[in-house]
């Protein structure tokens, strides 16, 4: 009965006013906005799980979508520095300019890891503010979600009740899921792994796993064969249980290493849409944990 009332309530706004147009830079934020907004929002996701969020072309289709956005939800911390500023300038949309509530930067709402001590390009493609891949820790999604629900309510007061109700419902289910995942993930504590790019730092920190080596010699720099040979030697001394990579990253370095060292290469979904099972935020972490638990002793 409660659910029926809620769903009736959720259907109402469609007839009351136009939906809030949300432009999500990455799939995880698109999924989060959909969870909070339901039918009261229209979400456009600018990138897919198979695309490298660092390197997106400022395509005309993205400018056209940016033009119509009421709210832009991005990771921030320079992750989109190569394309978002162009979209913001070219679209002529005054609602979503820097400094306005229409531009929501998720990394503002969590404490970032791996803030570089010094900034020099010789150290690779550094993010001055810290590692921007925050969504791989589900607790960060809860923090960002609370702020996002408040922001959506601020921009679209007529649906504020919907956003708050849906957020409450989601966060209850989400907190329960986090507790469940943490219990399941207990055997992963202390498990050593190698990563291709520092995409999973928050996930590993959450689960207490150990990152023993990164395949990229410097952030954003493609690993050469000679560098991979050094990594292989390092892995002889400090073994890892798997090499983790995101779906959009090239399988070659991890596979090369797998062949040499016998350490299995694991393609984690990384974000929503990263594989068949990761079709929503719950599926994303269910699948990630299932894959990781296969490594546990």
């Amino acid at each position, binding site marked *: 009965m409660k659910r029926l009332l809620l769903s009736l309530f959720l259907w109402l706004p469609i007839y009351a006013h136009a939906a809030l147009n949300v432009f999500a830079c990455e799939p995880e934020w698109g999924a989060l906005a959909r969870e909070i907004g339901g039918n009261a929002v229209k979400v456009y996701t600018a*990138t*897919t799980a*198979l*695309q*490298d969020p660092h*390197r*997106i*072309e*400022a*395509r*005309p*289709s993205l*400018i*056209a*979508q940016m*033009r*119509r956005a009421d709210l832009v939800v*991005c990771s*921030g911390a*320079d992750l*989109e*520095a*190569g*394309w*978002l*500023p*162009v979209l*913001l*300038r*070219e*679209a*002529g*949309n*005054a*609602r979503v*300019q*820097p*400094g*306005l*509530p229409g*531009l*929501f*930067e998720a990394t*503002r*709402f*969590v*404490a970032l890891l791996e803030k570089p001590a010094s900034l020099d*390009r010789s150290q*690779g*493609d550094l993010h*001055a*503010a810290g590692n921007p891949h925050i969504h791989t820790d589900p*607790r960060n999604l809860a*923090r960002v979600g609370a*702020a996002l629900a408040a922001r959506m309510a601020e921009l679209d007061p007529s649906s504020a009740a919907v956003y708050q109700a849906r957020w409450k419902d989601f966060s209850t289910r989400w907190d329960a899921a986090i507790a469940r995942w943490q219990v399941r993930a207990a055997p992963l504590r202390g498990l050593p792994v190698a990563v291709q790019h520092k995409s999973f730092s928050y996930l590993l920190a959450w689960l207490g796993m150990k990152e023993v080596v990164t395949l990229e010699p410097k952030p*954003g*720099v*493609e690993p050469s064969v000679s560098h991979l040979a050094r990594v292989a030697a390092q892995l002889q001394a400090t073994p890892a249980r798997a090499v983790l990579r995101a779906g*959009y990253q*090239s399988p070659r370095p991890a596979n090369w290493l797998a062949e040499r060292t016998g350490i299995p290469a694991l393609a984690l979904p990384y974000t929503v849409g990263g594989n068949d099972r990761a079709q929503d935020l719950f599926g994303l972490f269910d699948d990630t944990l299932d894959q990781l638990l296969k490594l546990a002793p």
Partner: protein
Amino acid sequence: MLRPALAAAVLAAAFPAYADADLDALRAELKEMKASYEARIQALEARLQKAEDQAADAAAQSETAAQPTPASLASSSFNPDISLILQGRYANLDDIEHRHISGFVPAGHDHGAERGFSLDHTELVMSASIDPYFHGYFNLALLDDEVEIEEAWFQTSSLGNGLSAKAGRFLSGIGYQNEHHPHAWDFADNNLMYRALFGEAYGNDGVQLKWVAPTELFMELGAEAGRGANFPGTDRNANGVGSYALFGHLGGDVGASHSWRTGVSYLHAKASDRDGELEDINDVEAETLFSGTSKAWMADIVWKWAPNGNAREQNFTFAAEYFHRTEEGSLLCEDNTAAGGACTDREDAYRSRQSGFYAQGVYQFMPRWRTGYRYDWLDSGSVDLGANGAFLPVTDFNPTRHSLMLDFSPSEFSRLRLQYSKDKSMENLSENQWFLQYIHSLGAHGAHKF
């Protein structure tokens, strides 16, 4: 004090069975202690984890409290983004005294082609938000004995409704390549079409108004008006508008892997005593002065492919542009009889209709490596010199060029390029050109347009 311990030792020696029982008790006690400590350590760990989580939450909250609205996504400091582009090359070229494109009047702003090692433009770029209402951009090209302000403009960011206005000195929005600075070109030199039309690119001092339609299909309309001092116009001592331009673009995606943009542009410029150097029928250099109007139509298309839209591994870009230019007015061929030339300071009607295109494909076949091919073709069309036709030759030669390049980019900020061109842009000449080029960008290098 010692006695009980001593007694125990003696007893232990005397009655081993009793000692064993005592040891078992001790072991059990130890085990219990260990278990209890482990439990306490676990409890402490849990509390620590909880405290860490709370600290992280608190940190995040304090951050949000400190910054209730997000600051700029593009840059996190108040300083403008500054970048410096270093560009240089080695060119292996024939020794040609007066490089030109046969059948076309030379456009201004051509830095020529130096042989051997040389430095290209060194570009200094600064940009930042001025305040919540404007964005500013500045691009300085540094050359020996020459500093040139390529762009210096501000653009509105708060008009909304898809509108944005720009004013100052800027590269015109016409065509496709026009807004790209040389460091963003896909080849070591300019295509023949832009060389014939503008020298390098069309820049103007003036205003631009752009509007993006609220549709899913990208639709953009733009209009510009300005001083019109650059080729094909000339600087003039006058109020009002010297040149204006109109352009429209359409664009979109086809599936996840393909994206495109196409456009039509029109440029109208006025020239007054525009200087040009041509060889007359006696092969003597003659100075010509053109006054009149220059109208150019341009059409462009760009098609980009990347598997699943992920350009990191492989991608392909095709770009082609076409132009048709009409110039009408009068031409004065200055007297060069003293040097053996044919011209006698005569001014008469002039009318030319010329066209051309370039088409290029650039393929990134593996990370960091790209190869590309470009074809240039110009039609010198019809040139009606009136009475000056008696002194100046008219050609029906069609300049062409094939270019092949290979470039390697160790990172997004550095690039090395090798290029070979078979250049037939001058009548009766077929030149093999080799270029070895580097392009490096220091500092906060801004994002590139599509």
